[in-house]
């Protein structure tokens, strides 16, 4: 249990008595897409009325549901601080990390009642409620060989690199593998074997690293049928990335490297 949410903490998964409503709280409706794949044939929508502060995050609302209203709600989260990338979900129709969205940014204008819809990310099989099977996503990630490849003899000191060389792939080192981008990609929705933006971002991170010698290999993999050429440049991925990575730009850089056979 993380310290920041300690004020509402009960044992995870069990239903406690509701805590006192803090001063300045507003009641919002949270509509969650529920699906228990073991018992239900169809997903359904559940609504909860939750008192919350504008400074609360969507993750706090989910905790409130799970801890005080319905302990069967299932979702992933770990760090609660936008680091681990485990709580990607579709909030009001866009992919976000629940721990990075503040309630005040979702409130209806003019004090009208607010409804927040929360769905699992699209394009991956749902296990239960907001919990999806991430394996296809990580399979694509592994397929681009996201590790340093270097065939030269191991140096005795660290491998040095100029600041300019480091800068080339700086943006793509920030990825936390949350899958917000890949599951916002319309190509990925209809074709699960497309590598998806996240895998390309992580390939980019090594392709443009001057210390790495596996660029050709990875470029070959990404030039294939399910590779970068499937990208339609719709920028959904860039809009979705909670780390602000210029995902589509990274994909275009990979395309350019393929086109001119030069990294």
């Amino acid at each position, binding site marked *: 249990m993380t310290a920041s949410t300690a004020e509402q903490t009960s044992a995870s998964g069990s239903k406690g008595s509701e805590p006192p409503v803090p001063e300045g709280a507003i009641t919002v409706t949270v509509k969650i897409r529920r699906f228990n794949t073991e018992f239900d044939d169809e997903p359904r929508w559940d609504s909860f009325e939750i008192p919350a502060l504008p400074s609360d995050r969507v993750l706090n609302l989910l905790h409130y549901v799970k801890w005080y209203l319905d302990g069967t709600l299932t979702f992933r989260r770990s760090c609660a601080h936008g680091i681990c990338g485990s709580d990607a979900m579709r909030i009001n129709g866009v992919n976000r990390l629940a721990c990075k969205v503040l309630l005040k940014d979702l409130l209806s204008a003019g004090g009208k009642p607010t409804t927040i819809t929360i769905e699992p990310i699209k394009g991956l099989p749902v296990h239960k409620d907001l919990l999806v099977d991430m394996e296809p996503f990580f*399979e*694509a990630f592994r397929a681009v060989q996201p590790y340093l490849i270097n065939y030269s003899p191991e140096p005795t000191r660290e491998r040095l690199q100029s600041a300019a060389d480091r800068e080339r792939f700086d943006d793509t080192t920030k990825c936390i593998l949350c899958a917000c981008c890949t599951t916002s990609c319309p190509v990925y929705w209809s*074709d699960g074997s497309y590598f998806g933006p996240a895998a390309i971002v992580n390939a980019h991170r090594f392709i443009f690293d001057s210390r790495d010698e596996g660029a050709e290999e990875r470029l070959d993999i990404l030039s*294939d049928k399910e590779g970068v*050429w499937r990208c339609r440049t719709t920028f959904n991925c860039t809009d979705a990335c909670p780390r602000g990575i210029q995902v589509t730009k990274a994909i275009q850089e990979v395309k350019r490297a393929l*086109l001119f056979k030069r990294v």
Partner: protein
Amino acid sequence: MSNALGLAKPRAPRRPAARRSNFELYSWLFMRISGMALVVLVLGHLFIMNVLDGGVHRINFGFVAGRWASPFWQMWDLSMLWLAQIHGGNGLRTVINDYARKDATRFWLKILLYVSMVLIISLGTFVIFTFDPNITD
């Protein structure tokens, strides 16, 4: 083995072994280049046919016959035909790849597309090259 995996994980892509083919690269590049060429060819065509002296009202058999007497306009129309067909066909191929859910649907839609492309390209090419201005009816 791969089948059992597929059942347990419906979307786990059966990622085919990399074929190391650059077909998609060339098709992507072709779309950009043909697109630029078509802007000139098609806009030029529309301008000549619809705006330039008298526009559409002066078009008749004689006008077409006169134009196709020159190899330049033959080539213009020929490249417009081929580029537009292949550019459009490749675009539709992509759309089919993106939207067809079942492999069988995808296959038959593509067959339909390729057959129609071949038909239109060959018919058009045939007409451009065998056009007889002295035809009488």
